[in-house]
């Protein structure tokens, strides 16, 4: 097995297709794997049941695991978080509700949650593109920041029948989402020219952050209710199960 370069640049030959299979950030030409983005080369070991060859990928971000293997002495220094992952089918996204209609809710996608980052054990220091999720969400939940940046974000729809898995025909959109809520959803389709389609029909999907009519952040009390800690009034939402 030929040695892999630690860092690849686009167009750099990484290895033959007979030894590796091509992962993200690479492309194949004439049975060789080439890098297609610049970044550290990672060889994921072969999973015994599914595949026979290790997968070669070029990482967009440096994960804590890669960092530890390359230079264990140096602690992980967070680079400036930069985010350019596109929503794909089955990816988990955080989105803000921009419009609620009778049959659908329009949301704008704030961030695509990095699957690999959530799976790793070391939750506190997973260096992902989405390091600033907290700051993105708090600024997005703030009413002043609405609508100014919506044009730059990907738009998505939550249709009435995609809100929850049971009693789909009794869904009332006004009791599920309000404008300004932050929703965790799963992408079901790339949709049409302008909208992605998102579902919240799972226990862990739904509203994660919401403000009450009084303007206070609410906490979830059940799968369909959130409560304002100041006034004590409850409001109806399709609530995501908290971790």
């Amino acid at each position, binding site marked *: 097995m030929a040695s892999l370069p630690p860092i690849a640049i*686009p167009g750099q030959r990484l290895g033959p297709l007979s030894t590796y299979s091509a992962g993200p950030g690479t492309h194949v030409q004439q049975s060789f794997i080439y890098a297609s*983005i*610049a970044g550290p080369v990672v060889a994921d070991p072969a999973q015994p049941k599914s595949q026979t060859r290790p997968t070669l990928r070029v990482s967009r971000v440096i994960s804590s695991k890669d960092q530890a293997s390359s230079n264990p002495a140096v602690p992980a220094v967070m680079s400036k978080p*930069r985010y*350019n992952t*596109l929503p794909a089918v089955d990816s988990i996204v955080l989105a803000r509700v921009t419009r609620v209609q009778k049959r659908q809710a329009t949301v704008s996608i704030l961030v695509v949650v990095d699957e690999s980052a959530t799976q790793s054990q070391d939750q506190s220091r997973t260096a992902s593109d989405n390091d600033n999720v907290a700051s993105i969400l708090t600024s997005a939940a703030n009413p002043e920041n609405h609508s100014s940046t919506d044009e730059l974000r990907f738009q998505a729809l939550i249709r009435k029948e995609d809100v929850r898995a049971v009693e789909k025909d009794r869904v009332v959109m006004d009791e599920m989402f309000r404008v300004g809520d932050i929703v965790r959803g799963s992408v079901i389709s790339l949709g049409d020219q*302008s909208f992605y389609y998102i579902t919240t029909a799972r226990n862990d999907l739904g509203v994660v952050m919401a403000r009450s009519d009084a303007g206070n952040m609410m906490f979830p009390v059940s799968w369909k209710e959130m409560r304002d800690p100041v006034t004590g009034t409850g409001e109806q939402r399709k609530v995501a199960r908290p971790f």
Partner: protein
Amino acid sequence: MADRRRINGPPGGTRPPVFASLQESSTGVANRAQRQRQPTELRKIFLKTGLIPTASGSSYLEFEPSASLAAARSNPKSLIPPSSALKLACTVHGPKPLPRSAAFSPNLVLTTHVKYAPFAARKRKGHIRDASERDLGVHLETALRGAIIAERWPKSGLDITLTIIEAEDDRWWGDAPDSHDASWGMMNVLAGCITAASAAIADAHIDCLDLVSGGVAALVSDDSSQSASSAPRLMLDIDPAEHRSILSACVVAYMPARDEITELWLKGDSSRAALDKNDGRTGHEALIDGAVDAARGANTVLAEAVRESIARSFA
């Protein structure tokens, strides 16, 4: 198209008058820029990525100024700089959602804008993109489209904007326009745009087949004797201000790892090239090969700049 939104200067430009007698006597031929480099020697390139924090990718490129500029600075004879060297900045924005009116696209939609700063050339440019700028944008888009793996970014757009801060001259500023005149400086600008845009795209982590770089080669006849025996010679990476007469020039966008050309622009008459007797190539083949060699040279700088960009973002 007239620019009605701004108060513009006179359309013809406002250069100070330079009298022919002045050139002949004091500055004259001696002040004319001469090529100090070997025919196959390229100018040094400065290329750095990530200078514009708000863009998802950016780069800045600069060509080494010719030796005559340094000489003129140390011993000024005229207020007019003898030559100019390319300086440009490239920003990449995206991938971002397409505008609402756009149709569904399963691929990345690439848009390129090339704009000269008003002060970039000796003749001032307007604020609205003119025909040559649009032309450069189309050439650049062709060059990059062949390198980007567009199907990895469905439903999204990528905006590439190049600002030319200092353009190359089309000829020595003191020369009167002649028959061989064409916008030779534009070809150098295009080569620089391709290299800079490639660095910025790599900086933005957009999937590419390879780093694509631009190179220029030209057939020039430099002899002041103007004798018929002096056949034009092949030079790489020309500075048009350093040559009396450029017969033809060629720009390529070249991907070295795949040995592919994504963009080819050849201009002028390449039939009279002075090649070796046992060189079986025709003039334009030699010209294209020369441009590819120049692009290979630029690619070494490009690769190093991209490595620096990773080292910075992952350090």
